[in-house]
């Protein structure tokens, strides 16, 4: 089981109940809501920003905005894409701010967090993460939402506010660009041809 998958709130009704309690002013429900989505939100932010502190800030800001906007959430729609859409927008804003501060900087490699992490990344993960950071924002977001957050295409389309076909195209292009980047860097030769179950 993936650690960042929802374990206790997979049923949409539970999320709605939590949101309903939040709207009634239940502070405990707010904390529960954040606790159960923080892995997903922070995971997306970290993948997009590649920096621990920036990802923490973006995740926190995403939750604050989401909670303050809970009344705007349509209960007929899924909560997760709505929440991840807010997180994605925060990441985009943060990246844009970063670019304004450092115009012309080779963004992903230079700002990647070099601090030791509890989860030590393998060389392959480093390579993939580097290649992922060089993708277009839309490709990267769609890729992360599909392969890491395990959202469906309709959910990705909802989160990214685009047609389903566009979301699909972005994921395909992200895969293609990633694969070619790994081939160009010789990563495939080094790590063999093993294809794991996805």
């Amino acid at each position: 089981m993936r650690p960042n998958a929802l374990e206790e709130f997979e049923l949409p009704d539970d999320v709605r109940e939590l949101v309903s309690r939040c709207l009634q002013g239940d502070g405990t429900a707010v904390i529960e809501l954040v606790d159960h989505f923080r892995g997903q939100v922070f995971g997306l932010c970290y993948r997009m920003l590649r920096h621990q502190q920036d990802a923490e800030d973006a995740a926190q800001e995403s939750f604050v905005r989401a909670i303050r906007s809970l009344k705007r959430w349509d209960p007929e729609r899924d909560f997760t894409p709505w929440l991840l859409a807010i997180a994605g927008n925060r990441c985009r804003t943060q990246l844009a701010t970063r670019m304004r501060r450092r115009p012309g900087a080779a963004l992903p490699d230079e700002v990647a967090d070099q601090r030791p992490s509890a989860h030590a990344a393998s060389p392959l993960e480093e390579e993939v993460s580097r290649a992922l950071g060089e993708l277009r924002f839309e490709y990267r977001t769609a890729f992360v939402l599909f392969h890491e957050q395990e959202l469906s295409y309709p959910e990705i389309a909802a989160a990214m506010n685009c047609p389903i076909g566009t979301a699909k195209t972005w994921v395909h292009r992200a895969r293609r660009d990633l694969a070619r980047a790994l081939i160009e860097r010789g990563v495939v030769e080094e790590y063999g041809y093993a294809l794991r179950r996805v």
Partner: protein
Amino acid sequence: MGMRCDEFEARLNDLLDLRLDPAVDVPLAEHAEDCGHCRTLLAAYGNALLPATLAVAHDAPVDLARRVYDRCGSNILVAPRSSSRWYVPHVAAAAAVALVALYLDSQPPQPSAARPVAKAHAAAEEPLTDPVALPASMEVASDSDSAFELWPDLSYGASGAFSDVGSLWPAKSIVAVAAPIEPLPSLGQPQVIAELASGLKPLADSATGAMVFLLDVLPAERQDGAGAIEAPPHAAPAASSDEAI
């Protein structure tokens, strides 16, 4: 017939979209066995997706919920007032006022349909390129006897005259009202100069002289018309000769 290389990548993506393992797909595996390029591509896809499939929870801060709660504070369920939108009603009101002003400014002057004031209305309909100039039809001719010819209703106090002026475009109204005063034909008359040169006169005589002068310069058809200024009965001899002054 075997699979083509472009079909290989498309099929690979389809399988990944369904979250299936491409390695278990027989046609795909057969093509990969025969084609080195596609075999490399298959391995690259697998390696690219491997970290994602093994993704672990990133170091999400455990106190994130508490931090979020503290940030929201007691207003946790109150949508923040958007400080960036406070000006929207003000801007809308200003835009409405500006639009109305522009609309009024672009409208040609609408003459009153109740009373025809031929010359004034004709002048009002002319395009006014110079805001301080009179339209051609309103200019006082150099050989004109009186500027009041242009403003018969104004000069003779006919009812409704000022309502007509008021319906004109404001700028034109100002010019139109001010312009007829400018010629002041009395200054060019030797009689008046003679009066001024002769020193102080009794008030009654001066007033009488002024009325006689007006009768001279006013159009003949107005001298007997309704509402016209009537000359006093004793004024005629004084106006007829300089000896009386």
